[in-house]
């Protein structure tokens, strides 16, 4: 039904034919790849901005200047002020903290639960695989906006609940991807080989599965960070995300929408911020995938 447009097609973006393995010389390759370096640098800078927000932000993000409401970019307010006279630049800077923490934690939920379900269902297979996959089907069929709305409505609107909603809504997609990758490892012979020599299940999972899936995990996790940021913004856009006065980019964008005609800067700057950060995360994800994917077409 109403789909958050972003995450579902991720399955199609990465069609792992062979298991992506973490190579020992990964770091060297990563540093060699120009794109990855640029993205990592940019993200580090963004993270720094977030951490040093109190120093960098010219004003307190929640301070209201009643006499300078809805002013365009000017000397003292570089990116202008919003509808109750708060400095847009300061809110964007503090917004980094909110956006990064929320997306990181949301992806953590997706990562842990998704990987667990994906690996379990691929490794055990049989009826468990079937049951788990049918549940995933149900969650996938349920329009993700309804799933997110329901979670937020039950737990009450707050940033943490929005984060949980976003995290949970991405689990089915993530789990299916991991299951796909794990299945291709399982069928590639050496798992049967090691089981035939009597190695224990936990050993196989730790030594065989995880290193091989690790590459895939890293790639998808990076891609899903972008998705988490967009989905949190989407939730805020329909008023169920961060609570006022938290300076969350999605809320700022949706507030900006109401001033589309007279205060263009309110929607533009958060929009650009989201796009750039998500772009760099996705670009990094692509670079990682090309590094780990032995049959990279590059």
């Amino acid at each position, binding site marked *: 039904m109403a789909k958050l447009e972003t995450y579902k097609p991720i399955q199609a973006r990465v069609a792992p034919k062979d298991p992506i393995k973490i190579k020992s010389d990964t770091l060297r390759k990563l540093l060699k790849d120009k794109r990855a370096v640029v993205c990592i640098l940019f993200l580090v800078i963004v993270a720094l901005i977030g951490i040093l927000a109190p120093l960098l932000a010219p004003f307190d993000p929640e301070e209201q200047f*009643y006499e300078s409401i809805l002013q365009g970019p000017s000397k003292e307010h570089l990116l202008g002020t919003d*509808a109750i006279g708060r400095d847009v630049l300061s809110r964007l800077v503090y917004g980094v903290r909110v956006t990064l923490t929320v997306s990181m934690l949301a992806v953590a939920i997706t990562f842990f639960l998704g990987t667990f379900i994906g690996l379990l269902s691929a490794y055990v297979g049989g009826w468990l695989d079937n049951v788990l996959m049918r549940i995933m089907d149900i969650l996938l069929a349920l329009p993700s906006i309804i799933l997110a709305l329901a979670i937020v409505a039950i737990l*009450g*609107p*707050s940033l943490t609940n929005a984060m949980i909603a976003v995290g949970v809504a991405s689990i089915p997609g993530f789990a299916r991807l991991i299951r796909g990758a794990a299945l291709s490892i399982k069928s590639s012979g050496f798992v049967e080989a090691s089981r035939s020599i009597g190695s224990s299940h936990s050993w196989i999972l730790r030594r065989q599965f995880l290193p091989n899936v690790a590459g895939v995990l890293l790639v998808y996790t990076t891609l899903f960070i972008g998705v988490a940021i967009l989905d949190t913004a989407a939730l805020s856009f329909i008023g169920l995300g961060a609570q*006022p006065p938290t300076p969350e980019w999605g809320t700022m964008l949706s507030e900006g*929408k*109401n001033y589309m005609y*007279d205060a263009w800067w309110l929607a533009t700057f958060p929009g650009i911020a989201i796009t750039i950060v998500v772009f760099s995360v996705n670009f990094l994800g692509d670079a990682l995938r090309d590094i780990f994917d032995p049959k990279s077409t590059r």
Partner: protein
Amino acid sequence: MQEPDTLDVHKTSMSIASVITNHLGGTLLTVNADTNEIESNLAESYQVSEDGKTITLKIRQGVTLSDGTPLTAKVYKDTFDRILNPETGATVAASLIGGIQETSAPDEQTFIIELAAPSAPLLRNLTSRGYLQPLSMAAIEKHGADYGRNPVGAGPFIFKEWVTGQSITLERNDDYNWPHASAKNQGKAYPDQIVYKFIQDQQTMLAALDSGSIDVAMEVPPKDVQRYRDNPDYYVIEAERQGLGLFLEMNLENETLSDLNVRKAINMAINKDAIIKAVINGEGTPAYGPIPSAVFGYDPNVESYGHKLNKDEAISLLEQSGYTKNSNGIMEKDGSELTFELSIMTQHNQAAQMVQAMLKDVGIDVNIQSLEAGTLIEKVSQGEFQLSFLAYSYIDPDILYLLFHSSQIGGLNHVRAQNSELDGLLEKGRTTIDPEERKQVYAQVQEIVVENAYWAPIYAEKVFFVVNKRVQDVKLMNVNLDYQDSWVKQ
């Protein structure tokens, strides 16, 4: 503007449905725009009995509904019976004529209403357009459950088409010649057709207005009105909203809020002018009492004894109650900080954040919880809240009964006011027919509400409509637009 749920005026719970059905039907009585007095309309004349319990109305001759049924007293009797009949599950219409025990139509022209007790608001309610219009029982049987999408009435326009999710179209009723007295054009309405388009988002509505795909924009947000006042191609129609634009409710069952000093301090901390300027672009007036000047019974000297902005006195009041400012600037008493949860609807985000900052100045810490409409209404009616923003609109002071009468806890009496003297006055207000006397009663009601600071009223606002100059002479008939005299410059 939202899509209505149904056009069956007895069953709808959305005001937009009454706005549209206004054009389809007429009212028994009407309110004179200037004198605010009640005048005859579809009822030529009306008499109220000595004890105020019986109202006799003479129905005007020569009026027919759009499906051909002639308008008679019997039509009104059947309509009112349908409202009172619990099977219909009538909504707003039922609350408007709650007091009626029984109606009768001895002959073609006389329609008699019997009341359990004299009800002052009833007469005014009979002027409310839309909800109490005469309906054709034949049409209701014919369409059955689908009547909501094929309404019939005795108004200047006839229902033509409803494209789900998009628009409702009304076309002119050519044999209409019984408009209200004050209309210049006494014949059929000039416009051939009215199309109501459903546009959820206000900015998109304004974009549609600018691009010419709509001529009239309803409920235009105050911040955008100035733009159209300066634009020669448009003209703005404004009216006082019959109700408070924004007020802060305080839950008396909350232990800290039960202390009058705290409630007064909150009232005095709020800078109403700053909020009016920021939130509604200055298009409103500060409110000191529970009802705005536009509603009958408003007592002007509320503005004198109402609580004014006075930070120092607010702080001293809190100190009187034993609070002292702690290290991080928040008032504290026996170790617990003075903090409240402010539950609001998302559209009040902006005002909430301003109030939050203002209360912080006097040492009251506020966390905002922005909920969507459904959840908020549920929480406030159950009393699961401390502070909450709300707005209301109602044509008669009797709304105060629903808001403050102790019997209404669980309904609109969110603050859980239980004041016997207030209850008595509210009941008296309902049954006093004589307007002057009724004003006295409501003056006392307002005084008690303000004294006890059950609320912190913030502002009364105006309702704005913007019309493209292409369409001339769009008039305002008690808060709703009337197109009887409107014509289009070709």
